[in-house]
């Protein structure tokens, strides 16, 4: 049977489909945001929520985040990062026994030693070769965000 190839981009998009823009931003910028929150004596979550709303970093329902949403989202991001860190540490122990060869994608990018992420960086992602393909507008039934109704989704807690 022929091997099915699923583009990695599709998997990444699918994996993040239920994540809010706010969550994705916090995950991607966790290092900076951690400093911001840590250095504030008592973080003004309402002001942060306003700033995120101004950048359209909305919650999972596409609504401007509230102070509480921002605080809870940051808590969830920290939990995710902690879990990743523990997982990376476990992998690190295993790698000490038998270090695997670098992934082919890293080799394909030329292997610039400066571009390799520091060990222990929980956000480290191996580089993939860049493949350009013509984009195509997704039809409404291809988009998980659209529920097919003619009105915006009602408010609900997940």
């Amino acid at each position, binding site marked *: 049977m022929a091997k099915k190839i699923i583009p990695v981009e599709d998997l990444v998009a699918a994996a993040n489909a239920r994540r809010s823009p706010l969550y994705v931003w916090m995950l991607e*910028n966790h290092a900076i945001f951690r400093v911001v929150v840590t250095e504030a004596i008592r973080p003004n979550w309402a002001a942060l929520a306003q700033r995120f709303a101004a*950048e359209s970093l909305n919650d999972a329902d596409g609504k401007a985040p509230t102070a509480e949403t921002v605080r809870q989202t940051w808590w969830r991001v920290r939990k995710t990062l902690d879990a990743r860190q523990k997982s990376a540490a476990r992998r690190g122990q295993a790698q000490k026994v038998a270090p695997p060869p670098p992934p082919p994608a890293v080799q394909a990018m030329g292997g610039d030693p400066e*571009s390799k992420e520091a060990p222990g960086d929980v956000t480290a992602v191996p*580089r993939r070769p*860049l493949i350009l393909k013509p*984009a*195509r507008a997704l*039809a*409404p039934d291809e988009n998980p965000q659209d529920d097919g109704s003619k009105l915006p989704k009602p408010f609900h807690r997940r």
Partner: protein
Amino acid sequence: MARRPTEEGAVIEIDRVPDTPIPKLLVTHGRGGTGKSTCVRILAERAQAAGRSVVIADADRTNATLASFFSDVVRPDHPDDKTVTDWLDALVNQQAELMATVLLDMGGGDQVFKRFAQSIELVTLLDQVGIMPVALHCIGPDIDDLSYLRDIEESLAFCPTQTILVLNEGLIKDGRLGEAAFTEVRADPVYLAALKRGAVELVLPRLACMQEIVTRRLSFAAAEKTLTLTNKHRVSIWRRDVDKAIAPISHWLP
């Protein structure tokens, strides 16, 4: 309406030039929330409706939403400066190899593209390989929205002849008319200097149901078919006005 100033400073309409198959690299600039991704969506949908393929590259590190609207959107693996710079390098190399048209959406106030473009004199490089560079600056009525245009223009980082200054009427909050809301922006020396060197102004009309379309991740074509009767009509009028506004510079667009 697209306009270009004459030597004397007056404004004239630009004649429509037929579409050409020249590949383009169109890069969006501006503060967060000024409509960069919306412009990419408009231009990508327009190109696709006409049967022209475009590659969408999303380097917006704070709000990468284009993948919700299009398939095969390319993004950097990681949002750190080094990764994004390497990714831009790979993107330009691949584009030159494929001679593809690319819409590149940079994040609000992003400095990585500016440094990258400056360091390799990107406009000159693209001209040499036969790719048309296009800069698209998204600007709201707030005078501070000109900060990124000022930064790019003063540093000469990415200032091709094909520069579009999009005045986004969707960002007018106090009910003023477009002409009045953008008076201050239009009088700014940076804005005037950009127009003088050949940039073109384009007014992006307001669409009342834009938020619903974004929330539901609809294409504009799909919105015209699936929203309520009145909103479908609003989208139809808006698309017609957008087409009219961009017609004079269609040869700069994908």
